[in-house]
């Protein structure tokens, strides 16, 4: 009678089992209704947003866009541009992104441990650290940049600080989440050898989160190199400053050149980070 054949299951048995274990048979009508209401509301809101968006403006702006595009493609004055200044600024931008991200990693690593529930079980403390991350992250890099430009003056230092603070929040959150998904058994194994708390974290946790960390840090450096361009627009140093100068004087050919420089730089960083990721994560996984 207990054979495991789907063809043996009749309506009577389904009814009996449903009676016995309703949870197994999934959502009740009420749950389903609530879910549809939530979905419906979200869909309606989306439709409303689309209605708000004024498509007419897009078409009226097309003509101007065409003129700008034509200007951008005319590179006949290439030799007269200040290449040294532009490339220096590009390097400065990458350096800003790199330094800011690296400082952020150093700050975020201990914070990440403090924010992980399997490392710090105290609820209140963890709540406060998590809200601290939210605060750093919730305020955009651009806002931080504006603040630091006022505080330390125009230039890359303001950019580095802005990237560092915003990324500390991002990294701390990502690290904490990575730490929360570790395999407890490995940590227990290390702790059982008599290692102290920090030692156990170093050998029971860090090897497990290392691939995730490396991946995230490399991505963030790459993404910051892109975003540091925008920081320049508000005076926080780098290529963005040059870009905004050229937009203001309608030098669209040079704007296009700067954009090409940024694209090449991002592609190079992407390539290097892919190499690094394969290298580092490969060894990390071999180390277990």
């Amino acid at each position: 009678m207990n054979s495991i054949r789907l063809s043996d299951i009749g309506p009577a048995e389904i009814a009996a089992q449903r009676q016995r274990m309703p949870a197994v048979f999934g959502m009740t009508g009420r749950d389903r209704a609530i879910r549809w209401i939530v979905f419906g509301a979200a869909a309606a809101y989306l439709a409303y947003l689309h209605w708000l968006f004024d498509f007419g403006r897009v078409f009226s702006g097309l003509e101007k866009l065409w003129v700008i595009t034509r200007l951008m493609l005319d590179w006949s004055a290439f030799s007269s541009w200040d290449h040294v200044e532009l490339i220096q600024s590009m390097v400065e931008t990458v350096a800003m992104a790199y330094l800011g991200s690296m400082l952020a990693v150093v700050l975020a690593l201990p914070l990440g441990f403090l924010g992980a529930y399997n490392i710090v079980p105290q609820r209140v403390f963890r709540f406060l650290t998590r809200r601290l991350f939210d605060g750093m992250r919730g305020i955009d890099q651009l806002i931080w940049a504006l603040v630091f430009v006022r505080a330390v003056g125009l230039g890359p230092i303001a950019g580095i600080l802005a990237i560092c603070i915003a990324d500390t929040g991002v990294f701390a959150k990502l690290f904490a989440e990575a730490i929360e998904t570790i395999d407890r058994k490995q940590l227990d194994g290390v702790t059982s050898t008599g290692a102290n708390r920090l030692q156990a974290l170093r050998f029971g946790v860090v090897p497990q989160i290392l691939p995730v960390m490396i991946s995230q840090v490399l991505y963030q450096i790459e993404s910051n190199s892109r975003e540091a361009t925008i920081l320049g627009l508000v005076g926080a140093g780098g290529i963005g400053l040059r870009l905004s100068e050229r937009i203001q004087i309608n030098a669209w050919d040079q704007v296009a050149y700067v954009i090409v420089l940024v694209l090449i730089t991002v592609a190079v960083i992407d390539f290097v980070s892919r190499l690094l990721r394969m290298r580092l994560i490969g060894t990390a996984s071999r180390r277990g």
Partner: protein
Amino acid sequence: MLELEHLSRRFGDKTAVADASLTIAHGEMVGIIGRSGAGKSTLLRLINRLIEPSAGRILSDGRDVTGLRGAELRAWRARTAMIFQQFNLVNRLDVLTNVLCGRLNQMPTTRVLFKIFTPAERALAIRALDRLGLADVAMNRADALSGGQQQRVAIARALMQEPSVMLADEPIASLDPINAKVVMDALLDINQRDGITVLTNLHTLDTARTYCRRIIGMAAGRVVFDGKPEELTESVLHTIYGDAGDGAVLDERMTSTSLPMGIIPAMAR
């Protein structure tokens, strides 16, 4: 009837299974013994077609299944259910869903992607869990269970496949003696009541003797013994296990983790 003809598998220059030929009748319960690295796991994985043979054929009731591809291959895998030493459950899913995974081969993919199971499938899952005494924990996450419970969930998942063969790869190697007995009893019960062929790798000789009427011994990838437990003499064991290199004599008590039959009451059926 399951026939292996001159089955071999090489990994690089290492031969895991060498020229294995076996015939296994419907409804047999066969224990495979041998040292670590003798090719026991590889043999089971070859039968399930998780790995491809380097040479040789697998026949099921005369039909060559070695060349199956795509849907036919997946149907073959469903028919030869596997049980793993480390259970291989999906930790983050509840027990019920893990068990329902046994139906995946029979389900349309759209239904799988949206995680829609029919009431009949759910009722069948409870039936399977009931048989293994686990219906109470159906809604728990798989990794919240003990090792013995997890292995029984894995067996319930295998049963859901409505298999004709069950391949158990060291099913009790990670379990304590009592759970080991519960799991072996469940496999025996499936073999005897459902008539499902059971092929199980075992690293404890006395478990193999207790549960299996036929034992296959492997050494260095070759089948070196195929017979009844009574025929496992000292010299045969020496062929299978060799010696430790320091002249130590094989002592079954040292390798045993199993309890004699009848020490604990049979599990609820």
